[in-house]
């Protein structure tokens, strides 16, 4: 089958004859991919920031597909079902799954206790092959995957596997109270969605901060947010203080993660010397931008083992930090409702649709932010959906 193949930092190629996956566990399914996305999280892998990303891996944790084969214990999914597959691999039985913490399942990742299995996200997240391919093995097929609801656009469906629930959860973890001022660092797909969802929780003011003008422009329209360029600020923290009556934002969301720019010191230490897990510039700004007693929601991804940000200020200011992988399955019913009623339209953020065979270009464009890219969807040659 055709599949993307990681060869090292910034190097990806297309395999044309990777063996197709097989059922290895009675609760597995094999899915023929119809759409898959490239995510900001994939960039951390692409840049070589996630430990145990083995050469030959196939990435891709956001995909939809048609069930081709099911294991003997799969009862809910049927061959031929068109499904969306949440990025968390979750058993549904462990105490964490029982508490709807599907992103923390205890039975899907041998390699690290810090995270559950994720499709195509390094051996640190279990070493499972991902969806930037024609076929994928989907473990615990009865738990997370669901049939795409009748009438739902396939592009909205594929954005339900990560971006929409992740953005929603970022806002949810902020514990937003009606009228709150919410600052979102990062205007990528996740930040845009988080800013949009902040209103659902009753935010009074939503401010997005990034340095890419085209994304800021997008945030003003898609997320109904104020949007500002940190390159034009002396200090983003002072900017936030000033615009909140010298108080700080009630809620700050870090939707940037470890590929943050904005501080040469952080970049050299984290992205060149690898002495910390990427650069923590946005996280550091976020801690300092939130009000005393406020809430910081971290949805951006940081690799192990550590990062440089001011935990001391977090203590002195008495802020609450909430953070997790998105628990996708948990949020699907609510978000399907928001999409089907038109309150949310995730597919609006898709700017690029390209054949799976052009995956190397897709990664480069998304990494270098060329052609005003926001979200790219890959279409495999055998995607033919009715």
């Amino acid at each position, binding site marked *: 089958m055709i599949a993307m193949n990681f060869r090292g930092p910034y190097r990806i190629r297309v395999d044309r004859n990777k063996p197709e996956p097989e059922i290895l566990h009675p609760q597995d399914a094999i899915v023929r991919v119809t759409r898959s996305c490239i995510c900001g999280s994939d960039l951390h892998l692409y840049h070589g920031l996630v430990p*145990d990303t083995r050469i030959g891996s196939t990435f891709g944790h956001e995909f939809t597909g048609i069930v081709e084969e099911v294991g003997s214990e799969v009862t809910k999914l049927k061959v031929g079902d068109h499904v969306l597959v949440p990025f968390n691999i979750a058993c549904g039985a462990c105490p964490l799954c029982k508490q709807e913490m599907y992103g923390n399942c205890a*039975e899907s990742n041998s390699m690290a206790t810090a995270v559950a299995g994720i499709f195509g996200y390094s051996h640190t997240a279990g070493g499972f092959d991902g969806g930037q391919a024609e076929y994928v093995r989907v473990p615990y097929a009865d738990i997370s995957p669901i049939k795409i609801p009748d009438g739902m656009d396939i592009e909205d469906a594929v954005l339900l596997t990560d971006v929409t629930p992740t953005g929603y959860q970022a806002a949810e973890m902020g514990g937003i109270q009606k009228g709150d001022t919410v600052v979102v660092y990062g205007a990528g797909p996740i930040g845009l969605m988080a800013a949009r969802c902040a209103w659902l929780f009753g935010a009074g003011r939503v401010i997005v901060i990034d340095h890419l003008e085209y994304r800021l422009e997008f945030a003003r329209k898609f997320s109904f947010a104020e949007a500002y360029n940190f390159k034009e600020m002396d200090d983003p923290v002072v900017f936030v203080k000033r615009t909140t009556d010298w108080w700080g934002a009630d809620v700050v969301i870090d939707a940037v993660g470890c590929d943050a720019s904005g501080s040469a010191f952080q970049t050299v230490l984290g992205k060149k010397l690898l002495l910390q897990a990427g650069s923590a510039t946005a996280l550091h700004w976020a801690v300092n931008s939130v009000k005393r007693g406020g809430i910081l929601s971290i949805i951006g991804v940081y690799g192990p083992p550590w990062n440089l940000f001011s935990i001391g200020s977090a203590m002195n200011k008495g802020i609450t930090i909430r953070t997790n992988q998105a628990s996708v399955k948990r949020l699907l019913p609510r978000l399907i409702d928001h999409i089907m009623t038109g309150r949310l339209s995730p597919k609006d953020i898709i700017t690029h649709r390209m054949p799976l065979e052009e995956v190397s270009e897709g990664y480069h464009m998304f990494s270098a932010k060329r052609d005003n890219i926001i979200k790219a969807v890959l279409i495999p040659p055998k995607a033919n959906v009715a």
Partner: protein
Amino acid sequence: MANTLNPVTDTNTAANSITDVPHTHNNKLAADDTMLADQYKHIPGWGMDADDHDPAYPMRHYNGADHQRINYEKPPQQPVTVEILHSIERPTVSRVTSDRLPPKGLSGAIRRAAFKYSEANAMHWMGLILADRVNMVEGVIDDLRRGHIPNIIEERGWKAEWKYNRKGVIKEALIGAAIITAAIAFSSSKNKKKKALKAMRAMKAKVTS
């Protein structure tokens, strides 16, 4: 008190004059919900999910299941057919595992060593990063052995760079050429430093002009 809670449209125009952003008096105690809702009529679903989400996820979903952590009914164990390194912070492998890319060669040996340390230990993660870099070299050797020369231009997606950032590519190529020329001048000259610097300067002038 004046409620200035509607900067959404007002401040968009101020986006470029960063010093001139209006201050909001975000007095949510004074603002009554219906008034707020009225203010955000243009945002579909404003405030719909506001109720009952504090404490937020994941605390809100706590149900005591944790206390059954020894006795829960586990899924069947997938047969382990390849070497799976598991974190020493858990007793054994998870019920499902991936059989993809088991540890191999020198990188594999480094990974095995790294997995002797816990996830709290830098030896674990730094070891894995080192293994990743070694693995990359192994990948190139493996390719060459199969008679495949990695096509770096294709792998790095530079076709897209040529399409969307042609100017940048040309500029970088010129700078690259300048550095190579300077390096040649440097190594082939007895009066090394002077000549190299001269060549560099000349090229820089060319590129920037």
